[in-house]
């Protein structure tokens, strides 16, 4: 099986207060060419760290164990040149805050031209000719004027489009997107997502999208992976996540979302707060919040195993699935 991106038991330790501490415990995930996969999780779940590990954008002093393979090559073992090649041609990255990732004293046009010149080796003239059509492609009206403007003159939505234009221009095989729309208004979010989705499909690029929003993940990604406390707990086709969640945590997230409440005065809730990867002890990290917990759950961390068309890290998954995974989130 030749995936484009393959994570095998990825474990990441970040230097926190000078000591390396495990933030991501165990993530195994495949992304095929042209496929869109979402990593969904709450704060502290390690979803962004996982994404950064793929692009080797972790802070100095971090330790990565397990394997990150990009078209068969180990990203963790890459040296300077291979890494540069990976970042210019292999993967492109879209961040949450486009503004923070652009030089505020340089014009938007210069930013794009520079991206093309340095990453694609195009001449300056060639690049300048191309940027206007690039902006048009990402749905920016009046591109000539926009190119002459500075980042602070553009709205967040427009800047995110510019970022997407810069990434897409490099024709990467995989786009990594870290909450690309969570800072945007809903209407803008819909447009930016549609844009990203359209460009990706038309060019056959794969997408690894990190988000906290299960609904959004389902809308733009073929498959959804759910992370909790630094581990991947569920992974299956997005279309099925809402109908038949495999892990009690996913089921709880869906039930407690106001989207799915229909006029009930109270929402079902998952008790407690989401744990971060740092706080995980022995056993299932979700055990303390889970309504279906058994003594066995606290003994060892349940391994990710195949269930139906997906996989899940829950000891009681089969049993619960058979009985219908309901009442995970209780009414109190």
């Amino acid at each position, binding site marked *: 099986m030749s995936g484009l991106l393959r994570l095998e038991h990825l474990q990441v330790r970040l230097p926190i207060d000078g000591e390396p501490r495990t933030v991501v415990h165990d993530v195994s995930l495949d992304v095929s060419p042209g496929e869109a996969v979402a990593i969904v999780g709450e704060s502290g779940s390690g979803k962004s760290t996982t994404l950064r590990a793929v692009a080797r954008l972790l802070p100095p002093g971090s330790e990565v164990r397990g394997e990150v393979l990009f078209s068969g090559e180990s990203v963790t073992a890459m040296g300077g040149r291979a890494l540069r090649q990976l970042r210019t041609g292999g993967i492109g990255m879209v961040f949450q805050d486009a503004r923070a990732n652009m030089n505020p004293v340089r014009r938007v046009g210069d930013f794009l031209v520079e991206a093309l010149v340095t990453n694609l080796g195009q001449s300056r003239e060639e690049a300048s000719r191309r940027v206007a059509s690039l902006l048009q492609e990402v749905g920016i009206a009046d591109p000539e004027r926009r190119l002459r403007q500075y980042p602070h003159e553009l709205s967040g939505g427009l800047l995110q489009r510019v970022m997407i234009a810069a990434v897409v221009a490099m024709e990467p095989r995989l786009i990594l997107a870290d909450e690309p729309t969570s800072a945007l208004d809903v*209407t803008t979010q819909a447009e930016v997502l549609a844009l990203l989705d359209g460009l990706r499909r038309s060019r056959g690029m794969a997408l690894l999208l990190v988000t906290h929003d299960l609904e959004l993940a389902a809308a733009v990604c073929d498959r959804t992976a759910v992370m909790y406390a630094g581990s991947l707990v569920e992974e299956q086709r997005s279309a099925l996540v809402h109908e038949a969640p495999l892990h009690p945590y996913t089921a709880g997230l869906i039930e*407690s979302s106001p989207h799915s409440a229909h006029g009930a005065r109270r929402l079902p809730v998952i008790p407690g*707060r989401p744990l971060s990867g740092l706080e995980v002890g022995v056993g299932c990290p979700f055990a303390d919040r889970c309504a279906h917990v058994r003594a066995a759950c606290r003994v060892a961390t349940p391994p990710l195993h195949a269930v139906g068309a997906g996989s899940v890290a829950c000891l009681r998954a089969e049993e619960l699935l058979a009985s219908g995974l309901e009442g995970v989130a209780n009414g109190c």
Partner: protein
Amino acid sequence: MAAEPLLEVESLRKVFPGHRGHPEVAAVDGVSFTVREGEAVALVGESGSGKTTTARIVVGLERQTAGEVSVCGRPREPAARVTTRERRRRGREAQIVFQDPYSSLDPCQKIGSAITEVARLHFGLDRAECAARLADLLDQVGLREQHASALPRTLSGGERQRVAIACALAAEPRLLILDEAVSALDVSIQAQILNLLADVRERTRITYLFVSHDLAVVRQVADRVLVMRAGRVVEEGPTQRVLDQPQDPYTQLLLDSVPRPGWKPTRAIA
């Protein structure tokens, strides 16, 4: 509905002066609405719609350019200085909870002190009464007594937001404004806080004014919705009606933009 109007906003207008070549902006441009006692009303809109500015004017954090705001039947003059008496009365009329739980608590102040400070200011409680009131408020917002001696730094986002709500409730306000109070929280915590707000409302018949961009949250908590865009109210009505049969195209657009199962993002609808 024979309830008294608790909050009346009449032709409210707020113009921010432009600077460095930018023209002045009317953040709020002729907004009028009424919130009755016991109601839960939501101001919905995107950034720049003027919803937050409206809320800030109501609690006196901004001064309006024109228009009237009355709380509990008494107009709030946009005066630079108010008397101590008036300031405290306003505190007992309306309170606000902000979006960011990380910056809305004094980092140097213990939780218990933050809550009792408000209760003492308004009700002049002695030591024993203070302790009782603190225990009661912590219980109301689902915190334990040990939390009282903690600094905000040691609490999670959800816990901090509970503290912020407790501080606001300590003044026993008749109107509580929630300015995107759950939008910075994790999904599983958001549900807990929404339930907490529902409990408080049931127990105290407090009036809520929600300021939110999240239509799902609004559907969950509000009886009535005002949809705002560019400083104006474009649609108003009962939540059910507005969200199920929107009359205004902008409301429809907002609804269509919310990700949900089976939804596909579409381009260039605006």
